[in-house]
């Protein structure tokens, strides 16, 4: 239970810090870079290194590359749903989540995890 509490607080704080920095930055396309900040990764990998050691954290970071590629596809999909199909932000981001799932798990199925 304590582990999950630490995860929750660490993740919440790091995500909030990047979000506040993103709010302060202009232009918006530059601030958007922080939408793909490694906030969850920093909290999770820190706990993974302490709890399970560097090999476990390395294996986790390998498949994170697939997740990042999926995030690029997701962002592109959101951008198109907003500009071409004129969807509002909430439905666009929710619908495009299917793209993230398909690409991330497709890459994992195709290339596998770290050796």
């Amino acid at each position, binding site marked *: 239970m304590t582990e999950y509490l630490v995860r929750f607080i660490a993740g919440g704080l790091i995500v909030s810090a990047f979000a506040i920095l993103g709010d302060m930055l202009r232009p918006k396309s530059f601030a958007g870079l922080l939408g793909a900040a490694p906030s969850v990764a920093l909290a999770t990998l820190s706990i993974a290194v302490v709890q399970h050691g560097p090999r476990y954290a390395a294996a986790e970071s390998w498949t994170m590359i697939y997740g990042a590629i999926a995030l690029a596809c997701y962002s592109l999909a959101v951008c198109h749903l907003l500009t071409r199909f004129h969807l509002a932000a909430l439905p*666009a981001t929710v619908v495009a989540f299917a793209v993230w799932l398909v690409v991330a798990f497709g890459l994992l199925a195709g290339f596998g995890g770290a050796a």
Partner: protein
Amino acid sequence: MLVKLSSSALKQTRWYEYGVRFLLGGLATVVTGVVSSRFGVSVGGLFLALPAIFCASATLIESHERRAKEKAGLSGRRRGQQAAALDAAGAGLGSIGLAAFAAVFYVVVSTTAIGAFVAAILVWAAVAVSAWWLRRKLRITSRAGQTERIAHSARRRGTVP
């Protein structure tokens, strides 16, 4: 436009919007831990690049822009969507940096854990900013070329002196 850091933008954000981000960020980190322990480290790793707070951020950006336009007596629906789309485009470029973060961490962590975090963060920032800068340069170049082609065509047709 140069990159600017302005604290005045924070006044637009309401207190509960920070709370929502904290909650979503915390939940995403907990979910990643649960997924790793139940389905294995490979599946858990995917969730390190989960667009967890993206839906909240995009919705907030859209509503801030819409509110600003509506204050001026205009419909801000389209402007809000465009602002959220710009944010998404930025996140797309940032995810190239995120992939670089993961790759550097993977290579360095077996040597030094703290060094892996420092190197990965620096590479993330360098790659993300370079990708943004390169895209900006390419857009400016292609716009200049387009304007030049239009002017050349107009001169040939004699519509402009």
